[in-house]
């Protein structure tokens, strides 16, 4: 279990926003917590997976994609803010994320 610091939170936020800005060809200042990933950015599930892979490598995480899929069933991610929160939870809990209510 990783202790989440302000530095990690800021890092996750920057990576997520930079990633979507580049992939979806929008400026970073057009993306905020309420930006809808699918409706506003035309994002897709493969972007979602690529970001998870990126964080897996960066933070050396033990997390199965399937675990995230199961977690997402109960906690669907639609906005950038929700995605950032979920990525932070993944870094904090790794595969144990599935046991969080």
């Amino acid at each position, binding site marked *: 279990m990783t202790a989440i610091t302000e530095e990690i939170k800021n890092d996750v936020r920057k990576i997520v926003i930079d990633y979507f800005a580049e992939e979806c060809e929008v400026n970073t200042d057009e993306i905020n917590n309420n930006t809808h990933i699918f409706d506003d950015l035309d994002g*897709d*599930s*493969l*972007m*979602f*997976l*690529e970001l998870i892979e990126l964080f897996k490598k960066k933070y050396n995480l033990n997390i*199965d*994609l*399937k*675990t*995230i*899929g*199961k977690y*997402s*069933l109960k906690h669907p991610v639609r906005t950038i803010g929700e995605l950032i929160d979920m990525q932070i939870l993944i870094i904090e809990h790794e595969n144990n994320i599935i046991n969080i209510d």
Partner: protein
Amino acid sequence: MDTPTFLFPAFVLKYKGNEVDIIKKYGVDFNEKLFEIKENTGVDITDFDILHNSFLDDEQKNQMISYLISCIFSDILKSQSIKPDYVSFLSMGIYSALYCTNSISFDDGAKIIKRVYELLNKQFCDKNYRMLAITGLSRNDIINILNKKSLNCEIVIKNNDHSFIIVGKENDINILLNAAKEEGAIQLNIFPVSIPYHSKQIDSEGFEDIIFEGIEVKNPSYKLFSSINQKQIDNSGKVKTEILKNLITNIDWHKTNIALIKQGVHEFVECGPGDSLKRISRFFDGDFNVYGMSKLV
């Protein structure tokens, strides 16, 4: 930019929205082309309206509009001196790829699409087949579900390590969909397709004579790369074989792209409506870029 490889998509799942603007920018009379398809094949796509996402749910018209836009894009690129090193295709993208390589004419490509669709539709119109895209599970995960639930489904396309297309009867596909969701799939989409393309369910005996009647197939004038066996298709005989095999053979799109990257390809152009191939390419290893038309013209 290196000499790019042109990739032709199967059909359109979602338009980018700028396809017709790009076509008009280069002086192509798009409406005339729509009427040409109707006159040549009887398939009426003249009411196409990109703002209303026309034909996304119509299997035959979707293939036809994808073919038309892909062919025009290929012509536009060539007119701008952007010519392909290799040409490859996913699934029904084969026909626009063959047009691009000057192996078949525009009209003959449209005729082949119509003939193939009619042959397959006759075989499967009352059989309730469906196509399901699963994202977020591995091939083994999917096979385990199929075995555990005794489902008669077939993985027909591997897009990448995390994305597969499966065909099967509607009931089995629905069971698979629910099981895949429980297993942790990130996304599940049932395509508006009723024919089990690329599966062993298709009986293609007798197709050759019907498909190629009155059709002239020439040797490809660019390097045409098979998504079936990852080899070059360098003569008209192989082109005909590829068209027939493409209907009944599983496709490994991942392997095809990796093989091209190993051949030294660094730049791909997605030559068709939407951007599905660019999206799929996210999980391919290697130093490469996939560009959409709007980035180039």
